[in-house]
């Protein structure tokens, strides 16, 4: 946390006034006395014309629920923002500072430009920007790249449950940490056996293998601990709603909306979730956190809606409360907002 707000070493300031016109954006930007402003209503993509930047530091002023994802892009093609490892951070309301490491993002190279992706509902004003460019010397650049990847924080995302991203030892040469440690283990074990044979005049593999294993496993553990530490949340909360309110890991609005809905919807009420058709995560998360209330995904035009695993099934007229979450269509007739997080995330009830 302290590192994130400390000045970025080796970075140079970027003049926002000169820079603003050259930013490629999917939404209109505006130059304000404080800096470059952008309204986020769903998502906004920004290409920063800083070819070769390896790290950025952004001072901002944020209002609402906005999450920043960063990676790099080339040309006019928009990168997949949530590719693994997914680099993201919630922009807490008010002033703040984020430091963005670009070298650990997918496909980064010196000829790409930073790509910022803002999601949620709110406004962000960039009040300051500093950039650090990658070294010109290819050897120094490769060394720095390897160092960054070796200690890159683990980024928990939807697929971490299947695999944790590969720990690299020398990413520039595709050398993985486990391979290095594995061969080191074999060398130490065999060397230890030979040393035992030389000094004690008999073969004994057990202690050599055990010592080699402990040493190399411990080395791997240290790297894992350093990489995993930033992803840990170590302040348990016994209140499920408080836990949800502070959970904004994958989406800035979803956790607070789930907490709001749990409080606003009675235990026996039947719920429909009205979200984007392509959003599988939103409606499932909301229905899960509202269970055991009957809860279904509202799909316009269907005579009957289905919930998690098809366990709950409701007709449109059976729904008591509706959760609206960034849906493309307007609220169905007969429903009015009753508990509001923001204009894209609220609970509605029948009139």
């Amino acid at each position, binding site marked *: 946390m302290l590192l994130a707000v400390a000045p970025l070493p080796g970075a140079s300031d970027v003049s926002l006034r000169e820079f603003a016109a050259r930013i490629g954006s999917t939404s209109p930007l505006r130059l304000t006395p404080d800096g470059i402003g952008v309204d986020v209503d769903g998502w906004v993509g920004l290409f920063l014309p800083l070819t070769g930047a390896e790290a950025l530091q952004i001072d901002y002023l944020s209002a609402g629920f906005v999450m920043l994802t960063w990676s790099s892009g080339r040309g006019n093609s928009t990168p997949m923002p949530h590719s693994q490892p997914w680099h993201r951070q919630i922009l807490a309301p008010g002033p703040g500072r984020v430091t963005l490491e670009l070298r650990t993002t997918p496909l980064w190279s010196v000829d790409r430009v930073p790509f910022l992706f803002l999601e949620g509902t709110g406004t962000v004003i960039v009040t300051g920007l500093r950039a650090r460019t990658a070294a010109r010397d290819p050897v120094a650049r490769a060394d720095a790249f390897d160092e960054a990847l070796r200690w890159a924080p683990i980024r928990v995302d939807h697929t971490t449950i299947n*695999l944790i991203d590969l720990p690299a030892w020398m990413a520039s040469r595709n050398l993985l940490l486990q391979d290095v440690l594995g061969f080191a283990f074999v060398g130490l074990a065999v060397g230890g056996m030979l040393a035992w044979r030389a000094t004690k005049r008999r073969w004994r593999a057990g202690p050599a293998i055990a010592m080699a294993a*402990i040493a190399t496993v411990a080395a*791997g553990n240290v790297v894992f601990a350093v990489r995993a530490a930033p992803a840990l949340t170590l302040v348990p909360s016994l209140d499920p709603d408080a836990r949800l309110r502070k959970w904004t890991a994958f989406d800035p609005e979803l956790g607070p909306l789930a907490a709001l809905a749990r409080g606003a919807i009675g235990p026996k009420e039947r719920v429909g979730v009205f979200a984007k058709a392509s959003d599988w995560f939103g409606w*499932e998360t909301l229905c899960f956190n509202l269970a055991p209330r009957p809860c279904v995904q509202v799909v316009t035009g269907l005579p009957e809606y289905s919930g998690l*695993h098809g*366990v709950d099934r409701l007709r449109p007229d059976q729904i008591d409360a509706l959760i609206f979450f960034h849906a493309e269509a307007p609220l169905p007739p007969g429903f009015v907002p009753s508990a509001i997080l923001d204009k894209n995330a609220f609970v509605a009830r029948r009139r």
Partner: protein
Amino acid sequence: MTFLVAAVLMCASGVGLLRALRLGTGRLVVDVPLGWFAGMAWFAAATFSIQALLGAPANAPLAIAVLALPPAAWCLLRWRRPGLVPSGGSEVPVLERRWMPRPAWLFAPMATWSIVVLAAVVLHGLSTPTHTDDAYRVRAYAPILVAAGTWNGQARDVIAMAGPIPAFAPALAWVLGAPVDPFHVNATIVLTFLALLALLVALASERGSPEAGWGAAFALTSLPLLAYHVTSTYSDAWLAMYLGAAFAFLVAFGQRRDIADAARALLLLLGAAMVKREGELVAFPAVVLLLAQVAWVRRAEGVRSLARFAPPCAAYGVVVAARVAAVGLPGAFPFLRAAAERAVSSGGAAANATAVAGPVGAGGPASEPGVWAIFVAALFSDGNLGLLWWVLAVSVALLFPRISKDGLAWSGAALGLIFAETAASALWLFPQFTLDHGTVHRSLLPVSAAAAVWLSALLVTACHPESAKAIPPGRRGDAARSGSKGRPRRRGG
């Protein structure tokens, strides 16, 4: 608070079950964590069977009755047969109880790492909402359905898919009246991890080999993907933990030949069988080898040696019957069905599967790695399982003669069979999930947990041969004899 009460009740019920079956070790420090595993298995098996076969949903009176039954049975047994040998009165001698591993300078950092990981798992696991990663989890949703008494066709599918333990054990507090908080699922898994580490360390220490316990704890906490999984609600962690605990007793039975250890291992393997749909398949070869080992070790007794194991196996048959009643015969054995379909498929189907999997042992089109390459990388290079498989492979190669000598052959064979099953699933049955890295890493978690426990026993006995076999009182073992070879014989007092 209700969760803690439920956890205590579950644990007490498990300890009661162990005592009633005369499987307690007589040491609470071992019996309490073992009781947690046994209690969950008992509660899940009983309530699932009652719901599926008798149609009685899990409610508070039923839950309390199920939990109270084992302690009541134990009390009844003690009352009816006061001369009964107290449970834990093993006739097999053990090494002197010892809690401090030696050398301390080596084990202190290992123990510190294990405790740090455990603390991180507890804190992070109790801080992260249940839905992270994939919105909802079948295994986290199933207990809610159990608590709500939802039993329609889709709900039965979800519960059967989760397996009785992940579906029923976390639901206990809700069944007893607590409001539904999905967090109980996280907390149950975190508690099970705590119980596993406590069991491994306590069991080994009580038997005079704390090095094996701390070694196993260190090996388990050095599996990054397992550490992550126990902070989540995926059931691979349940399966891994039941299997790891079972292997502690499989190893112990191989080394000490105490029939009670075999029975404890069976109990835990049956628990593993009640996790997910594949738990049964994972546990099956270990159960078969365990029974074969018992029959071999006790061959002088003939068939009677297996009589003790018939009731738990029959009880598990009831759980299988309940599953069939819940989801029908085809739905009850989906993996067997998939294997049968895969085996009989020929021509176009097999060709399609090969096309998906790419040529065996080689990169597929466009130089993408093939299914074998991905599987091998998952074992050795990807880091999700740390260095476990490197160490295991080298240890087996260099310490092979010790495996049989130290009583680890049967458990090693069980491990090999489970690994072969896992490999067959990744390479042959579902190659598409290996190619997309979907399940290959986490499908290796159960066998890796078992391997960690087994490997620790192998390395400790290779370093301290005297810890492998219990030495009957009054007799000097081979280790002691070889240790004093060439030294002057001591005479007199």
